[in-house]
């Protein structure tokens, strides 16, 4: 478990903050309307509560300090999974995209609905986003196969 400073959190985007919430297992409810400052406040609050009940980590367990004045140098594309285990592993992954977010994920054999549930926070997939496999609309029961690519079509921008 990692503890973030307010400065580190303020320098991160909403998607990264949501990923932190997932990684750390914080019980924080949010939706697309939740603002970045609200997420920062909630994470800091959960960290304080966790620190109050947990013993401090041993020195050899502590994470190295984040690089850069705002902790941004260590940013990774939030939606990309960790580096693959070689070409064989990459071949067993399917590209999943939603709007500007995308990545390759090991979801062969899963239904579209299961992939949606698994990745809805990482790729910011809404329940209204229609799934398409290789350009054709499919339903949530479709089972993903090798060679497929899955897109959840994000709504067109309308300043709503």
């Amino acid at each position: 478990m990692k503890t973030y400073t307010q400065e580190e959190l303020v320098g991160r985007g909403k998607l990264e903050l949501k990923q932190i919430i997932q990684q750390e297992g914080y019980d924080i409810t949010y939706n697309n309307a939740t603002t970045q400052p609200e997420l920062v406040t909630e994470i800091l609050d959960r960290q304080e509560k966790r620190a109050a009940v947990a013993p401090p980590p041993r020195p050899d367990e502590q994470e190295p300090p984040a690089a850069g004045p705002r902790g941004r140098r260590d940013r990774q594309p939030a939606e990309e999974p960790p580096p693959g285990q070689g070409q064989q592993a990459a071949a067993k992954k399917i590209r999943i995209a939603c709007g500007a977010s995308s990545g390759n994920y090991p979801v062969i054999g899963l239904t579209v609905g299961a992939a949606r549930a698994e990745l809805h926070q990482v790729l910011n997939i809404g329940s209204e986003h229609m799934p398409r496999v290789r350009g054709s609309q499919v339903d949530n029961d479709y089972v993903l196969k090798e060679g497929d690519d899955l897109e959840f079509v994000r709504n067109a921008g309308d300043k709503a």
Partner: protein
Amino acid sequence: MTWTSAPVDTEAGVVQDTVVLVGVDNNDTKNLIDRYAGGQDNIIVICGGNDLTDGNVQVCIRQDGKEVTQSLSTVHDEIAHPKDRSPHKMSCEELAIASTPQLFFANETVAILMCWVFWHVAEHPSYLFSPTFAELFFDMEIGKVNAYPRLPQPSTPSIPGATP
């Protein structure tokens, strides 16, 4: 074939062989333009829109009465079945309530991406027959732009149970 750019004449409609740049921010109007474009033999619609920090640009090309890329509403169900209303159908009070904060940088990004597409349309004749992309999504939060092809799907889908 010569393409021209002309303002929309609501009485006469949009003339043939026109590039239409759409920035209307409501699905009802996009639906209207999409249906009109679907009846034209040769037309290009470049439609951009954004929310606070993300957005998209979609290009629909029709050549000789056939789709080169999918229509706005084929890809976007919210345009096919709009739940909003065109501003000209709304009262001043409704317009004021519907107004949301806007970010200059997001508006500029969607305008520039529309220019990317227009540049392809104007400078690369092959793009009109074989576009490398027909929709762009951007997200300032994660610093990315994704491109999608949006080619017309065969009438018999290759995926069992899929809708073209």
